[in-house]
């Protein structure tokens, strides 16, 4: 099947997280084993326990060009998405109309797809507050647009000079993976020539935190904030929320070569499955997850034994980490024990709709540098998580094939295969 299709490659990356304002800074933080998780400075409402997160103190707010997004603003998630997009476009040499024209890319052949969880939480909560307070007159004509999850895509499309397919994809924690996969499909079908894909999330506190605290998904760790995200560890008790954005530029190999683009890696395969099991818990046997990985490998035409590294979903919840371990064993058999696997969430938290994007960016950096970031806080691995999760320290080896896994609430799974080229 794969021989009939053009190879799809990654030519630009951009990211912003609590570890740094660029893809490189974020990756350097991961490799150094730094944590972006800290105590939050906000007043937390009565009854809420969670007081930590991987939030970004300050970032350089991007100019919005012709967009007059005030009252309400575009929300942090949009600004972060825009920053990451600008970085990725510049990285790929497609930042301006002239660049894109020179590269031979027409605007209707450029797609902009963004993975999003909630979106512009500021506008939604802000509007809600005004209504409850009876201040409806303060809600102007622009509030409706600002509340829509796809809001950020408008900024991205304008930035990329794109009029091709544009939307936001929502699958909870797997949103960005499905977004990247959507771009992959569009390119392979010949519908577009460039896909600007990724995800962005800035769950505002306390609202965003409360949603996940309420379903018991957040880490209950008592101790230093940096130790609270503990994927695969015996003491894990949930994830730590973070914010950030990651974007990637996808093109076909032939066109990227023709225009002399720098090629990071091939996006060789993509597989998406549904557990069809429960609305918040994954199926413990990891079958749906395993099938997503197998599909992605099948599309890539790659044997499981060729995989060197897995960038895990690794949220640090009791259910995910055990199920994910099962899934890896099912997929890889004996080879599972030879894999190096790590969870970036141990350091920059769970970025929800942006998670897969920033983690795919990190995986691209791993392929490019031969450096595998560690899983932090893995002091006592859960006996059920008995694979090599690269505890504490980064390691070096040539990584030729890597997998990025994402398993969203509602059992929505997506797996990406990346390969050096």
């Amino acid at each position, binding site marked *: 099947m794969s021989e009939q299709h053009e190879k799809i490659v990654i030519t630009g990356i951009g990211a912003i997280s609590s570890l740094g304002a660029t893809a490189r800074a974020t990756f350097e933080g991961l490799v150094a084993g730094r944590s972006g998780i800290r105590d939050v400075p906000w007043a937390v409402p*009565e*009854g809420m*326990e969670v007081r930590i997160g991987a939030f970004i103190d300050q970032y350089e707010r991007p100019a919005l060009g012709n967009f007059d997004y005030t009252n309400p603003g575009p929300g942090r998630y949009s600004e972060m998405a825009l920053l990451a997009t600008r970085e990725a476009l510049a990285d790929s040499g497609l930042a301006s109309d002239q660049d894109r024209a020179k590269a031979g890319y027409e605007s209707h052949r450029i797609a902009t797809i963004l993975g999003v969880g909630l979106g512009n939480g500021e506008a939604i909560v802000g509007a809600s507050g005004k209504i409850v307070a009876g201040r409806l007159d303060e809600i102007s004509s622009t509030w409706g647009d600002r509340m829509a999850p796809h809001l950020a895509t408008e900024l991205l499309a304008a930035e990329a000079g794109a009029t091709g397919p544009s939307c936001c994809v929502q699958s909870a924690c797997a949103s960005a993976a499905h977004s990247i996969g959507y771009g992959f499909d569009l390119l392979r079908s010949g519908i577009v020539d460039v896909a600007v894909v990724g995800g962005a999330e800035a769950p505002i506190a306390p609202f965003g935190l409360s949603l996940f605290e*309420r*379903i*018991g*998904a957040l880490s*209950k*760790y*008592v101790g230093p904030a940096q130790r609270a995200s503990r994927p695969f560890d*015996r*003491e894990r*008790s949930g994830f730590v929320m973070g914010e950030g954005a990651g974007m990637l530029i996808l093109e076909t190999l032939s066109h990227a070569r023709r225009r002399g683009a720098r090629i990071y890696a091939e996006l060789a395969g993509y597989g998406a499955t549904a557990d069809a099991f*429960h*609305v*918040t*818990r994954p199926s413990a046997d990891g079958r749906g997850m395993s099938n997503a990985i197998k599909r992605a490998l099948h599309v890539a035409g790659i044997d499981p034994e060729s995989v060197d590294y897995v960038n895990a979903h690794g949220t640090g*919840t*009791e*259910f995910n980490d055990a199920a994910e371990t099962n899934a890896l064993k099912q997929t890889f058999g004996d080879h599972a024990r030879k894999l190096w696997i790590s969870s970036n969430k141990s350091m920059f938290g769970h970025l929800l709709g942006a998670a897969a994007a920033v983690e795919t960016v990190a995986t691209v950096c791993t392929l490019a540098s031969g450096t595998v970031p560690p899983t932090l806080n893995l002091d006592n691995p859960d006996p059920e998580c008995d694979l090599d999760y690269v505890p504490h320290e980064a390691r070096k080896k040539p990584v030729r094939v890597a997998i990025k896994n994402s398993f969203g609430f509602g059992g929505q799974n997506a797996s990406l295969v990346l390969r050096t080229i």
Partner: protein
Amino acid sequence: MSDLSTVSQSSSMLSSAGSEPEMLDSDVANRIRKIVCDSLDVSPDDVTSEASFVQDLGADSLDVVDLAIRFENEFALSIKDHDYLHLTRLCDATAYVEGRLSGAISGAKPAAEGAGAAL
């Protein structure tokens, strides 16, 4: 979220000593029973003293949280999650609420909770 099958076993520590009637009939018990019936769409006869909300009445982990919120609102209490995960049978919930209302149970979070305890 914890594995509730182990929680309901350990929650027996909250039930009162001695034998108890199959159908509890105190005011608190009746109010709790009504909440459980409304929330889980079960009949009052099903909500026996020892029927497990999860195993017997079809509650999932989200329902357990929702029940605790309803108990909080009904009895004007604040129930922390280290407590409400144990309130999975009528007898346990009744004993807990009556204990809180009388002041016998504090409801405060235990100090230096060990990691992984019942969660």
